[in-house]
């Protein structure tokens, strides 16, 4: 077994062999939201399968490509497709790309996802800024030995989502005429969609949305000192009293319809950060 630090170096060496810039902005693009990465100019794409220690995504709608290039004048690195805990990978493994992005130079990470809306103020197609989260996944990526050169043993999570980035996103949204909600995002392991009783519980606990990603990546990003902005794209309502069965295809289809305003928002944020 090799140390994670060495694995990061090996992954970095492969990325660096074809790309010299040090992007300070990272993007993780969720289900149906991946196409923003195609706008990078000049686009330098590396398939996850050719990066050492990267798992490969097995989910439809997730492409599995690390994309590097300029967006709105800023150097960015974007994950087109991500890894999920329900795929059977460990929490450490699904968040490995975040650690690699940090070594690549990323200081600000924009994490996005498709999720279910619990708060009735939300609607399919709504965008929600994540103000805080509830980890109901059954684990977290920091369990295990801690490498103090990467981050502290006991990281503070009282402001996991950066206040200044939230304000910036809200400003951009107003300027662009995009309605932006904000709230608490919860994540479960999946892959099954929650039962009604589970949704009632999650609502009681204080969540506005529920998904199957984002939180492990946020935890690792905070641990290694990045500023995080979280954006949830509500693809279906998960209100226990009004539940109808949903399919992954529906989730991807709503995410794709929401994509134009999502992309406009992210472009605006990246432009202002760059």
């Amino acid at each position, binding site marked *: 077994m090799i140390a994670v630090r060495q694995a990061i170096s090996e992954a970095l060496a492969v990325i660096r062999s074809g790309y010299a810039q040090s992007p300070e902005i990272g993007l993780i693009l969720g289900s149906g939201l991946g196409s923003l990465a195609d706008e990078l100019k000049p686009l330098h794409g590396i398939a996850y399968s050719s990066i050492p220690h990267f798992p490969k995504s097995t989910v439809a709608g997730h492409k599995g490509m690390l994309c590097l290039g300029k967006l709105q004048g800023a150097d960015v690195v974007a994950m087109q497709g991500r890894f999920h805990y329900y795929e059977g990978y460990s929490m450490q493994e699904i968040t490995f790309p975040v650690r690699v992005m940090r070594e690549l130079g990323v200081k600000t990470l924009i994490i996005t996802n498709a999720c279910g809306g619990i708060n009735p103020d939300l609607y399919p197609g709504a965008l929600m800024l994540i103000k805080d989260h509830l980890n109901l996944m059954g684990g977290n990526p920091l369990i295990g030995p801690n490498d103090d050169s990467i981050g502290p043993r006991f990281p503070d999570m009282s402001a996991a989502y950066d206040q200044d980035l939230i304000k910036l996103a809200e400003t951009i949204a107003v300027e662009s005429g995009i309605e932006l909600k904000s709230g608490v995002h919860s994540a479960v392991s999946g892959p*099954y969609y929650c039962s009604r009783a589970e949704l009632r519980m999650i609502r009681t606990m204080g969540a506005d949305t529920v998904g199957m990603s984002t939180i492990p990546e946020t935890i690792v990003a905070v641990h290694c000192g990045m500023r995080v902005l979280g954006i949830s794209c509500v693809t279906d309502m998960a209100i226990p009293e009004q539940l109808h069965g949903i399919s992954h295809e529906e989730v991807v289809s709503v995410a794709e319809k929401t994509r134009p305003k999502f992309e406009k928002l992210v472009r605006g944020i990246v432009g202002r950060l760059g």
Partner: protein
Amino acid sequence: MSPFTPALKNSNESDVSRSAEIVRNALGSQVEPIGIVLGSGLGTFAGEIQGSKSIPYSDIPGFPVSGVKGHSGKFVGGRLAGKDVIVMQGRAHFYEGFPMRQIAFPIRTMRKLGVKKLLLTNAAGAVNLNFSKGDLMLITDHINFSFHNPLIGENDDTIGVRFPDGSRVYDQKLNELAEKVAQKSGIKTQKGVYMFMPGPVYETPAEIRMARVLGADAVGMSTFPEALAAMHCGMQTMGISYISNMGAGINPGKLDHEEVLRMDESVYDSIRSLLAGIVAEL
């Protein structure tokens, strides 16, 4: 070399087929048998099966073998109320250290044996203050409070879909049928939400209060993994909890496993009539 442990593999179609073949050879061919899983203290129900044949789990590859008292660990096939049934006498639990996907394996094997309807039973502690020891609760829904589940890992699409709908695990028609049977036989039933706890510790009084706030009516250490696996592979499922005790802190006194296993004869008679009555109507 990788710093990570290999990704979880889930059981695939060929593992399931192989084990199903071994069970079929031992029990003989059955036509769409009804599956029944017997919970703690209910093992003697297997004695009701006519013309029964059995196979110990230890003879079936891929099967978890439970070491818990009150769970003997075999498949029993035969006839009940004029129907083919296949009964799990004893089950494996998450708290024994079995991976969730292994707890799901016997359910997938039953599906391969033609089981389309599955009756799950368990002993549970009451959270709902209107329940009493000895009550039977029809499970309307569940809360997975272990935050683990048997569908994590690579998915075999020939068994079930990647993202199954967890809001339709317990079949409403089966529950309605159970209520009708209970009414006809003069058996009182409750309905409620079963909260799955990993165990093996019994809950604290604070945890029982939390479970109530979060919407549970009963708590237990089984059934959820099997019900989820059954939904995933397309079975109609129902669950019956028999309230073996009130949750911690509701009444004075300690909880012990002996109390859970000790079932009054009248309670046993009710469950037996209910199960046989449901099977007869299917």
